[in-house]
């Protein structure tokens, strides 16, 4: 109704004008009829009517929509006012945009990953099976189970519909469809996997129990993506054959496009879990869905009723109690993602607070300096309400501009986050900008600007008009008094900034420590490439050895190659855990070590130093006495009382002599907990090197989890990459070779999560510091302009500009110092939150605290001195005259 009125206004005005014209015409007719001359009649009629334009205007006034019109005027006025203060406007809008953008991006991430329910029907009934253990030494929980536990849960817990899936292979596997080949990601799942998740294939079916049995028919289910890219979305695909890892499979189904798997997968095959082979170890994850009508308590009771039976093959020590439990799926899935995101969210939350504080301070200051303008307007008859409304509109205009720009910033920040963190956290790459988060942040920023835009307005409107306008001497006094809340705000900003900077500093120190760590070998000029041997042709250790030996021989002939070796895992990667036993100790004193199977001159190639004894030689072949080389950690932790060299160990049923001890190299942590061994992202646990040629029988099981990696020391990276590709292709042209990578890249990858967190927190902290610096700058600039008169007098009385400047700038630095002190104290408590991300750095690391404080003070000094230099341009005579 109102809108129609608004738009029909022009038409109505026109009608009124016509009506008035008609009135005049009628009257003139009438007067002429009474005998007036047309001229007289027209004059008389017009006289009787009055000024039609005034009347039209009056009607126009009545029809207008008062609020909208007034708002329009206010907005126009606000735009004019803001244009006249470009520095203030730019600062406020940029602050708003940055903070709205950053917060929206991070909160979108948090919301999508931590809060939003999983994309499965009745996802709250989904859970992971968890093995919970407790012993006098501590408690633990694991999500991986062996074949026995899986079969028991599948067959003897009716309250749960369960499915298992196997650990994924490192890298992709080879898929051949007719002429086309592709490297795809394979996941092996039990029958019922899709049913448990609650998503049915769009074409065909899931796996049957028959297919899930060892030796059953080889079946495959395709992802929608694979179906579209490799099979052109052909619905008649079901029943056709593909070659996966060199073996024939029949396609039985295709999953829908909107199916989100627990990991990114292109093709599923049956798990065929049993108690033997893979199922002999804890290699299965088990997902469960509560059966219709069943409760968590029922399921728990049924799981408890299994007693110790599921753990019969785990050889738990007698003082360990173990139980199977359910862990809500969402909870389990977001666990690893939670900490970094929460940390990031807290960090940007702090920046949000700082930005709001900054905005508040800015608006407060502006409100203060506009007291005169407001007083003028009120003296001219403007009502308090009009003044308040005007200031509110100004704040809203600012917020709106900030929000518009902030949306743009948010998109950019999210893209940046995904580019930075997408590799480390795969979930990040699926997140889109969340409008709820955007609205929430925007609302917060608007509320801030309205509140703090209004407080001075209310204050100012209560001002004694006479005092503000009349006595200019009272201004400087009032000005100083008004600065107090603002100083407090700025000090708070500095304190919060310091907290973030300390956190960033500690993370940086952690990262630097990790990067400065002695790798234990010479990573220069080394290029590595891994090859997946998950292929029917590499089921035997003999065929693997043939590949190793022949390819290495080829590589050594390639131009530029100095040496080459292959191992099941390289430094800065995770390695196989293997049980072993010294032959000279009792049977029950078995220990666990990291192990790798190697071929070629691994120690020479990587430059790992020999400490005692000898390294592995080409003469250590099948048929010669079995040997092993251990690292220093092995000797230090496991052979404390005598020299390791010469001792014999039994590994995977083979007895070997330790012939040498080599230097430690850094590996990715693989859950090794030994007293005295530094744990963390990088560590040097006990490690045994086993010659592949002497492990033909035992190596087979391991290469499923650890792809062999070729390492080549060559003059240039392209030389090495070409050598690896050509050599392997010459031995087996069908084998897909992974992308060759520099060893230095592998090392960087190992600390990528630390680098990501460090970068994110450091950027956030710098933003916080920048905002705080803007706050200090604004404070000093304002106090300079407010106290011009005072400074003019000072200068006139003989103070030098330098002295005055120092006095003013010192205020800012002192404020920063107070803020830094408070922030430092606050940090001591808050760093507890990031403790788990620190490595080899104390949470009270004095270097970090001192550096941060110094940095903050320097920035504060710069932010204070810049506005203080305005005093240099002050002409005392002019200042004193002007007021």
């Amino acid at each position, binding site marked *: 109704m109102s809108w129609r009125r608004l738009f029909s206004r022009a038409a109505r005005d026109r009608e009124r004008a016509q009506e008035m014209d008609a009135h005049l015409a009628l009257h003139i007719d009438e007067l002429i009829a009474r005998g007036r001359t047309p001229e007289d009649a027209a004059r008389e009629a017009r006289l009787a009517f009055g000024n039609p334009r005034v*009347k039209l205007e*009056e009607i126009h006034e009545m029809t207008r929509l008062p609020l909208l019109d007034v708002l329009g005027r206010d907005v126009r006025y606000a735009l004019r006012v803001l244009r006249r203060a470009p520095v203030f406007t730019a600062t406020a809008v940029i602050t708003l945009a940055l903070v709205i953008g950053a917060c929206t991006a991070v909160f979108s991430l948090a919301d999508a990953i931590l809060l939003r329910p999983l994309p499965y029907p009745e996802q709250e009934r989904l859970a992971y099976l968890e093995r919970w253990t407790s012993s006098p030494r501590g408690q633990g929980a694991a999500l991986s189970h062996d074949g026995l536990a899986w079969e028991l849960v599948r067959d003897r817990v009716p309250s749960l519909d369960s499915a298992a899936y196997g650990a994924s292979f490192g890298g992709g596997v080879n898929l051949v469809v007719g002429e086309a080949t592709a490297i795809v990601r394979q996941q092996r799942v039990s029958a019922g996997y899709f049913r448990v998740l609650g998503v049915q294939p769009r074409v065909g079916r899931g796996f049957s129990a028959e297919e899930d049995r060892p030796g059953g028919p080889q079946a495959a289910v395709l992802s929608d993506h694979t179906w579209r890219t490799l099979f052109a979305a052909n619905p008649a695909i079901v029943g056709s054959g593909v070659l996966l890892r060199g073996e024939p499979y029949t396609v039985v189904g295709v999953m829908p496009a909107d199916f989100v798997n627990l990991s990114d997968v292109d093709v599923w095959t049956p798990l065929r879990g049993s108690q033997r082979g893979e199922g002999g170890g804890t290699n299965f994850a088990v997902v469960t869905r509560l059966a219709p009508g069943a409760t968590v308590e029922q399921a728990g009771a049924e799981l408890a009723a299994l007693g110790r039976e599921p753990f019969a093959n785990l050889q738990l020590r007698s003082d360990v109690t173990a139980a199977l439990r359910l862990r809500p799926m969402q909870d389990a899935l977001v666990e690893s993602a939670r900490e970094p995101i929460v940390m990031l969210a807290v960090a940007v939350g702090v920046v949000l607070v700082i930005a709001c504080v900054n905005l508040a301070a800015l608006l407060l200051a502006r409100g203060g300096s506009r007291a005169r303008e407001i007083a003028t307007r009120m003296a001219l008859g403007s009502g308090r309400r009009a003044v308040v409304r005007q200031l509110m509109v100004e704040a809203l205009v600012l917020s709106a501009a900030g929000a518009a720009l902030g949306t743009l910033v948010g998109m950019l920040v999210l893209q940046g986050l995904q580019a930075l963190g997408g590799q480390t956290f795969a979930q990040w790459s699926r997140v889109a900008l969340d409008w709820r988060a955007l609205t929430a942040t925007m609302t917060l920023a608007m509320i801030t600007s309205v509140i703090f835009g209004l407080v001075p307005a209310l204050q100012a409107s209560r001002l004694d008009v006479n005092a503000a306008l009349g006595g200019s001497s009272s201004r400087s006094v009032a000005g100083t008094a008004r600065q107090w809340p603002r100083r407090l705000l700025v000090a708070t900003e500095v304190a919060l900034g310091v907290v973030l900077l300390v956190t960033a500093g500690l993370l940086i120190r952690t990262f630097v420590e990790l990067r400065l760590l002695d790798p234990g070998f010479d990573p220069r000029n080394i290029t590595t490439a891994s090859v997946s041997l998950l292929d029917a042709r590499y089921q035997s250790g003999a065929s693997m050895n043939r590949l190793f030996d022949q390819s290495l021989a080829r590589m050594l002939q390639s131009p530029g190659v100095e040496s080459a070796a292959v191992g099941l895992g390289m430094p800065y990667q995770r390695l196989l855990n293997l049980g072993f036993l010294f032959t000279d100790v009792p049977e029950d004193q078995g220990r666990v070590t990291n192990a790798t199977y190697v071929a070629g001159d691994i120690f020479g190639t990587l430059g790992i130093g020999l400490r005692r004894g000898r390294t592995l030689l080409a003469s250590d072949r099948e048929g010669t006495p079995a040997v092993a080389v251990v690292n220093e950690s092995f000797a230090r932790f496991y052979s404390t009382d005598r020299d390791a060299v010469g001792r014999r160990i039994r590994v995977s049923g083979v007895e070997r002599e330790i012939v040498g001890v080599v230097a430690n190299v850094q590996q990715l942590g693989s859950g090794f907990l030994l007293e005295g061994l530094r744990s963390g992202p990088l560590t040097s646990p006990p490690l045994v090197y086993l010659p592949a040629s002497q492990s033909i029988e035992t190596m087979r099981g391991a290469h499923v989890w650890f792809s062999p990696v070729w390492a080549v020391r060559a003059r240039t990276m392209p030389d090495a990459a070409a050598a690896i590709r050509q050599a392997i292709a010459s031995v087996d042209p069908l084998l897909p070779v992974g992308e060759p990578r520099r060893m230095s890249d592998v090392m960087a990858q190992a600390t990528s999560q630390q680098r990501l967190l460090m970068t994110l927190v450091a950027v956030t902290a710098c933003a916080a510091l920048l905002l705080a610096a803007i706050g200090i700058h604004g404070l000093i600039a304002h106090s300079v302009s407010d106290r011009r008169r005072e400074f003019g007098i000072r200068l006139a009385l003989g103070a030098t500009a330098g002295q005055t400047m120092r006095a003013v700038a010192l205020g800012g630095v002192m404020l920063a110092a107070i803020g830094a002190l408070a922030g430092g104290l606050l940090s001591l408590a808050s760093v507890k939150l990031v403790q788990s991300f620190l490595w080899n750095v104390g949470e009270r690391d004095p270097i970090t605290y001192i550096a941060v404080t110094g940095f903050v003070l320097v920035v504060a000094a710069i932010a204070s001195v810049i506005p203080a230099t305005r005093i240099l341009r002050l002409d005392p005579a002019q200042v004193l005259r002007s007021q």
Partner: protein
Amino acid sequence: MRRRKGGAPDGDLLAGTLDMLILRIVRGGPVHGLDIAQRIERQSDQALLVEQGSLYPALHRLEERGWITAEWGTTANNRRARYYRITPAGRKQLLAEAGRWEALVRAVARVMKPAAS
């Protein structure tokens, strides 16, 4: 949407009563603006002289409130004019205002009488 309170634009007694006078005249049947002005003058024996243009804001106001309606028509002389008609709501309003007016007149009269006598 809230509308500005339509008070008397000129703030004097005549303007306040102008609405009532217009309603009273329009009640008699369709009339156009000039007619209304002339009738007020005639019926008040030229005591109330209306600036003819001033009628229009008042007419507009009354129309906005739904007390009168208007449509274009032709006069006896074949001129276009907008003819006003009272609505039921307008009749009610006229009654109320007339009542208030009489009460006011009586009250003023009671005050004036002793002084006059």
